């Protein structure tokens, strides 16, 4: 019996955002946008979903005079991401 893949993470853009945030302390919205190649609107929607799920936190502030949105992964997000990767590994080892 394989573990069920977290549907919230099993989406290309949300998974990319979580992969970025899993490896950094924090990241700008613009950094996430550049790294994923997503549009602002699309990225905002997916970030909201991850925030609502408690996987990431979002903080609005300023960098100099420019507004800046910073995202961070939460412990719950790290745990969900770890479980997702483990589940993927199980799927892959079973298919070999």
């Amino acid at each position, binding site marked *: 019996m394989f573990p069920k893949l977290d549907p919230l993470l*099993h*989406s*290309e*853009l*949300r*998974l*990319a955002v979580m*992969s*970025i945030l*899993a*490896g*950094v*302390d*924090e*990241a*700008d*919205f*613009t*950094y996430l*946008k*550049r*790294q*994923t*190649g*997503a549009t602002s609107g*699309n990225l905002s*929607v*997916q970030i909201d979903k991850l925030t609502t799920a408690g996987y990431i936190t979002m903080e609005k502030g300023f*960098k*100099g005079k420019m507004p800046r949105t910073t995202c961070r992964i939460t412990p719950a997000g790290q745990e969900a991401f770890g479980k*997702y*990767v483990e589940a*993927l*590994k199980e*799927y*892959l080892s079973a*298919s070999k």
Partner: protein
Amino acid sequence: MEQNKEMTAQESLALITETMNNNRKDIVRSSGKYFVLWGILLTVFSLLVFTLWKTTGKAVWNNLWFALPAIGYPLARWIKIKDAAPRAENYISRINGGIWGSFGVFACSIALFTVLYSLLGDSQLTAIVLGATLTAQIVLLFGIAETISGIVLKNWTIKIAGWITGIGGLAIFYIAQAEAEQLFIFTFAGIVLAATGLIVKQQYK
């Protein structure tokens, strides 16, 4: 990138791996500009100290070296704040900053200790030995810092540049045995550092 695309397990893992690799590359690339900054400062200070020392004949101009971190660190901080490119911070960038910060503290400590000992110490011979080997000690520390930086950033160019700076600097120290030894060593180290920064920036363009 689409949010609703159905992915296979392989595609998901490939996406995670690619994203994490891109993150690392981005952090290495952004470190390039700091290598260029410190390389240029080191070369300029090396030439400046040597010129003033040679023209006036006063070794006291060596104290100008203490102005290098005093100018360099605020400048690096200013570049970080002014940097328009979006960025992310992680433990790799923090460790890299820590390595170079530690190098600065230890290099300044050695230099300060040497200056103080030459002024206050009771053994003239010890002061001469400390002063004579100061350049070698600092260039060795410099090479170690650069090599560790390359290991942390997983970048061979930086690792090799660290070996070249440390071992090459020591080789110059032993071979040159000249008045201009400090100029040769630090100009060499500065040029290697700036060139490393430019190469790294090109590698991850």
